């Protein structure tokens, strides 16, 4: 009997357990390890603060989505010993493997910024990347009567890079609906050169910021938070005052990767961006937010990576060359408020452009343009996620490689 171990039962790990279970030869046993018991529909976190989703809608038991033939261990991973091909668990047990798939994801690390996780944390400083943060922020927003609302990104890379901007758009609509928009001073503070950084997106979407009266503070690399003064400071001496700070803290990979001694500065696993084999050892693969590949950290990316990783694990087992199959494809709905959304589709080499999706010239979805249909797509995606994406089903008409047809390149 040979052993394949998957570390992490989030979007990528759960999906891979389903993919691999169907395709691995009969003499292989699959084990999946995660310390949690609950699977979160993470795109839903964005909607919880505004009361659009209830927490119950976006949480289900992990066990429901793991094939019953796969061994599911609910325990924390201590570390990976790559030299002896062994995973050590927190209870002292060890698991030998022939092939390892790392899908340990990433998480917020507010303690990385001085003062961020201090007395103001979850009082007037919130994240919306955890169920706890999103739920507490909902309470805060319900009682909020006005003031300086700062939507903020600490540093890149982050999970779902457009989510903070979506949050700002939804907050504008939320305060307008509550009749207090004129009492709210809404800012977007980013370490990047602007709210949009790609030429086409900037050209097509800059109007949104003016229309929604969102003040952008670019090039802000946060150094510390002063909880008493209620200000954030950056390394160049800039400061921004807040009454309510909605931050995206530094994102980091799993501590188990750090303990294993092969992660980068942010605990991401060095990984070949086209084959998804790690640079750690030939029998270790990685997928999703856990890798250091220069793609977006997003569920759609994990989904598109999934088919490539499946083929390459099988290739590796059969001694065949790996396929350089992953092109960095990502596909994301971007909420713009008031029942509208944008859709973006891009990869390592092509920035988001206008066009039609998934059928060239037809749509029905429009790329890089606001529409109600796109918003309906985003809302329908919750069903697709629970019923197709994490169970490893192919989503019709959407191949894992990005299509050039239907897109308006110059």
């Amino acid at each position, binding site marked *: 009997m040979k052993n394949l171990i998957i570390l992490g039962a989030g979007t990528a790990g759960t999906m891979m357990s389903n993919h691999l279970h169907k395709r691995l030869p009969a003499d292989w046993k699959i084990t999946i390890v995660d310390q949690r018991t609950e699977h979160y529909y993470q795109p839903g976190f964005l909607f919880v603060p505004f009361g659009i989703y209830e927490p119950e809608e976006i949480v289900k038991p992990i066990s429901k989505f793991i094939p019953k033939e796969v061994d599911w261990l609910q325990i924390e991973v201590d570390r990976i010993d790559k030299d002896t091909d062994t995973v050590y668990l927190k209870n002292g047990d060890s698991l030998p493997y022939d092939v390892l798939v790392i899908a340990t994801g990433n998480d917020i690390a507010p303690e990385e910024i001085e003062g961020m996780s201090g007395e103001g944390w979850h009082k007037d400083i919130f994240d919306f990347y955890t169920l706890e943060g999103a739920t507490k922020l909902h309470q805060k927003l319900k009682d909020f009567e006005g003031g300086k609302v700062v939507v903020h990104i600490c540093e890149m890379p982050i999970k779902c*890079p457009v989510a903070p901007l979506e949050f700002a758009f939804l907050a504008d609509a939320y305060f307008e609906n509550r009749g207090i928009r004129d009492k709210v001073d809404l800012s977007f503070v980013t370490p990047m050169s602007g709210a949009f*950084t790609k030429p086409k997106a900037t050209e097509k979407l800059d109007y949104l910021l003016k229309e929604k009266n969102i003040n952008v503070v670019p*090039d802000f690399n946060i150094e510390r938070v002063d909880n008493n003064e209620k200000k954030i400071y950056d390394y160049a001496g800039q400061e921004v005052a807040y009454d309510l700070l909605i931050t995206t803290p530094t994102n980091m990979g799993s501590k188990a990767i750090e303990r294993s001694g092969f992660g980068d500065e942010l605990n991401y696993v060095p990984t070949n961006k086209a084959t998804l084999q790690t640079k750690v050892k030939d029998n270790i693969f990685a997928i999703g937010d856990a890798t250091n590949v220069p793609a977006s950290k997003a569920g759609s990316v994990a989904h598109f990576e999934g088919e490539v990783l499946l083929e390459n694990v099988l290739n590796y087992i059969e001694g065949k060359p790996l396929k350089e199959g992953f092109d960095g494809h990502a596909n994301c709905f971007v909420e713009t408020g008031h029942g509208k959304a944008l859709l973006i589709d891009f990869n390592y080499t092509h920035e988001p452009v206008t066009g039609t999706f998934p059928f060239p010239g037809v749509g029905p979805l429009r790329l890089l343009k606001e529409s109600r249909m796109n918003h309906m797509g985003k809302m329908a995606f919750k069903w697709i996620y629970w019923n197709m994406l994490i169970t490893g089903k192919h989503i019709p008409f959407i191949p894992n490689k990005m299509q050039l047809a239907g897109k308006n390149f110059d």
Partner: protein
Amino acid sequence: MEKIIANQSINVNDEGYLTNHSQWNREIGHAIAQEEGIEMTDHHWKVVDYLQEQHKNDVPLTIRRVGKSGVVDIKGFYELFPKGPLKTSSKIAGIPKPASCI
């Protein structure tokens, strides 16, 4: 578009970042630095070398990564390249501006 930098015709984008890194050499870097008001020292060049090495290996660059590189800390990075240190140093190094997905 093409721009004459250090008497060489170089492909750059609207913001002056090189679009073809193979056209880069130290004279180009030096000339871009002068346009940005920066007088290059050995320390500046060490940072540029580090950025280019990371870029070659497809490693996405962040201020923190540079700060932990051992080449320069974050405060020092701001002293060498005031205002937007990562943007300015990337431009001098002939690599793309750090960008998000849209």
